[in-house]
């Protein structure tokens, strides 16, 4: 294998600095002991992390995001698993159109989805409710859940199921004892990826969340629009830290590359 030349390594270093700079600066400023935006020149302080506790708006928004991500990802999977089995196993009329429909939220700008849901939920009387948030998040995370479930359903050897059937197992037993356990790793990673997508979603949610149902990114976005102070950097730093931990765990268990390179990203 050929090696990278010195020029390539200089480029690579600058590139990595570019990718990390905004993330590092948020985390650094979060540790400032001062009352204004500054780097912690005289040693780090946890002052602004402690301040978060006095702002229930951020704490409540955090829990809304957690519950929203967990519930909508779970429901999205409940819809994706049968859909993935149908797409992977059977050649039926309208299969491609069905797949395209379920993948369509990837192509529709989230602003458009936000507006469409705002109008729809207001008309049917669930505007600004948690139920509305869950429904909308099911839609935007479903393509991610479906992609990973589909990958493991297609990768599975159909002969294992045939063996179970020929040994007298019923359809239900095959599903419960053979199929589901075999696609479980894909399903679990699908849940994790969906959760992260839901937790980060801001563009669509900003249209449909009301003051009682704001998610954390929406709360952060609205806060930043008014002013940028050390408090919002400490909140952001906490979100970044949590994401990095989740990222490293996911990378170890499933492989980040496999999680993200899978088909779908390239198909959009």
């Amino acid at each position, binding site marked *: 294998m050929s*090696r990278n030349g010195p020029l390539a390594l200089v480029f690579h270093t600058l590139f990595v600095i570019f990718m990390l700079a905004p993330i590092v600066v948020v985390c650094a400023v979060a540790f400032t002991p001062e009352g204004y935006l500054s780097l912690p020149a005289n040693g780090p302080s946890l002052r602004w992390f402690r301040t978060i506790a006095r702002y229930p708006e951020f704490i409540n928004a955090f829990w809304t995001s957690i519950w929203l991500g967990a519930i909508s990802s779970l429901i999205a999977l409940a*819809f994706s698993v049968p859909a993935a089995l149908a797409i992977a196993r059977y050649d039926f009329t309208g299969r491609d159109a069905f797949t395209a429909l379920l993948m369509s939220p990837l192509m529709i700008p989230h602003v458009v989805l936000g*507006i469409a849901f705002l*109008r*729809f939920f207001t008309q049917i009387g669930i505007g600004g409710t948690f139920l509305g948030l869950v429904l909308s998040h099911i839609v935007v995370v479903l393509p991610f859940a479906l992609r990973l479930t589909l990958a493991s359903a*297609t990768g599975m050897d159909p002969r294992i199921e045939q063996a179970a059937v020929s040994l007298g197992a019923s359809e239900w037993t095959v599903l419960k004892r053979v199929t589901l356990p075999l696609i479980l790793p894909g399903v679990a990673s699908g849940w994790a990826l969906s959760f992260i997508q839901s937790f980060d979603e801001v*563009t669509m949610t900003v249209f449909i969340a009301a003051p009682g149902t704001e998610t954390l990114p929406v709360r952060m976005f609205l806060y930043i*629009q008014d002013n940028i102070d050390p408090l919002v950097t400490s909140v952001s730093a906490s979100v970044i830290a949590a994401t990095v931990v989740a990222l490293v765990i996911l990378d170890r268990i499933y492989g980040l590359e496999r999680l*993200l390179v899978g088909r779908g990203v390239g198909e959009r």
Partner: protein
Amino acid sequence: MSALEGRSGPRWMPYILSAPGLALFVAIVLVPLAMTILLSFHDWGQYKGIETVFILKNWREIWSDGYFHEVFLRTFRVAFAVTLLTAALGAPEAYILSRMKSPWKGIFLLVVIGPLLISVVARTLGWALLFGGSGGVVNKALLNLGVISSPIPFMFTETGMIVALVHVMMPFMVLSVWAALQRLDPQIENAALSLGASQVTVLRRIVLPQIMPGILSGAIIVFALAASAFATPSIIGGRRLKVASTLAYDEFLNTLNWPLGAAVAVLLLIALVLIIVGSNRIVERRYAEVFR
């Protein structure tokens, strides 16, 4: 697909399995989208609110008012610049990553594509801090290095928007080129080198043509996402410098002129679908043999 000759089961089985997903998406995706398109034809007045009539008022306003042209032009100009920059920087980086040795390869791949999963709001906040905040770190660094002679305004400008969006979109480009690089056979490069081709010739004649489909499909993704980005242009652009998505947001939540906001959003959707489908066609026709 090959798994199809597997387990057949009853003929109605796939329909039963796909029914829940289909019903859900018809009810809460297609219906709301249709309602939004309808909404863009409704009338609106400061005191009367939304009037459910079918008129072309909003569309005519977008068509004739120079302000809307300016906003849409800016949206696509920014998206185009972001696409070019991510391709010019992301493709070489993906190639460099693919040539790294084992532990570094994984670590740097995580560093480069990991930000994809970090909140866009947090990342944009980082750029806002670097641009403005405590004296503008980026300008200080560039001035000290002698790259520039006077500070560049980043905050509330298109330049700043483009830099921050390049950061936000970069992982998509690197991922797409990375996927194309995985299909590349290193033996072909070695063969070219052993036949006396220079490193530059190998890059230009062997590597680039093979990863071009990856760059192009990455470009389509980046363009679509950059043209419809919301949080980044909103935070960096401020209240004055609007793009299509922030304009639609303004009409919906500040002016409360929903029909006009819906028209802006529907136009953005139509423009993007046309651009994506059109460029997909061109890419697929041009590189039909690669995709087969």
